[in-house]
């Protein structure tokens, strides 16, 4: 049985607690990195991370890119979308096709 985690700054992720996801607040890049490692080694198949937090630890996230678990999915935080999620899709298109064909 797998679980779903949400990590990022406290205010952005509080709402997800209400619907039963496990939330793990983390603020500094080091905290976030440690949190991701911990969650990945536990039973979390999906980890939602706020884009603000994802921006700080992008190299850590790319370590999990080619594994089936966990899926680390950036979602916009309270401060709005940074376009990281969209650019992640674009980079995987670029990886496969060679050029970015999505507009």
């Amino acid at each position: 049985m797998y679980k779903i985690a949400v990590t990022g700054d406290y205010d952005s992720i509080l709402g997800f607690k209400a619907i039963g996801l496990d939330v793990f607040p983390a603020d500094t890049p080091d905290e976030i990195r440690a949190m991701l490692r911990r969650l990945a080694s536990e039973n979390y198949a999906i980890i939602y991370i706020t884009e603000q937090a994802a921006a700080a630890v992008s190299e850590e996230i790319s370590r999990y890119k080619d594994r089936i678990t966990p899926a680390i999915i950036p979602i916009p935080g309270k401060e709005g979308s940074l376009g990281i999620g969209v650019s992640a899709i674009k980079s995987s298109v670029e990886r496969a096709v060679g050029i970015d064909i999505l507009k």
Partner: protein
Amino acid sequence: MRVNPTRMELTRLKGRLRTATRGHKLLKDKNDELMKQFLEIVRENMRKRREVEARVLEMHSAFTLASAVMSPEGLGQALMLPKQSVELELSSKNIMGVRVPDYTFRTKLDDSGSVLPYGFASTTGELDSAVETATDLMKDLLDLAQSEKAASLLAAEIEKTRRRVNALEYVLIPQYRETIRYITMKLDENERGNITRLMKVKDMMIAQTREDN
């Protein structure tokens, strides 16, 4: 390639060239199909991400609204013990030999029948609607995770396959062809050398018999 120009080597190389050509064709077909699937998934992924992002922002603003009329402590307290728990089941789908995750989730409510984890006394209506927005979001979030992971796994596989196709097409197969040509030439040359030598010997033998007579 450095090989001995022998007939045996030639046969061996011809076999390898055949295998390589067939492998190249198969891999190319695989890559084409992967690409087709990938583009489908990625388009869907893009659409879904835009939608989910908009809705997450909607949820954030709902919570901001709720936190504006409530104290942060009160808000934290109200949400501290969720009534709903989510269990995720993970199976995997096979797309052209790439295993991609297939999520199904089950939410469990405790027996009170409401998703709101708090009483109505100390909370406001804004929080209720914020929690409701979040609940609606759940399925979309999961779909997003699924297609996003599938897209990134497929992208990795496509990259790998493309490398293999290119290695076969531009390195291995030309190399085999070149070597086969080299061996054939060498063998032919040996053959010609042999014939000339035989003719020469024959001439010498005829000359010798004439002298003897």
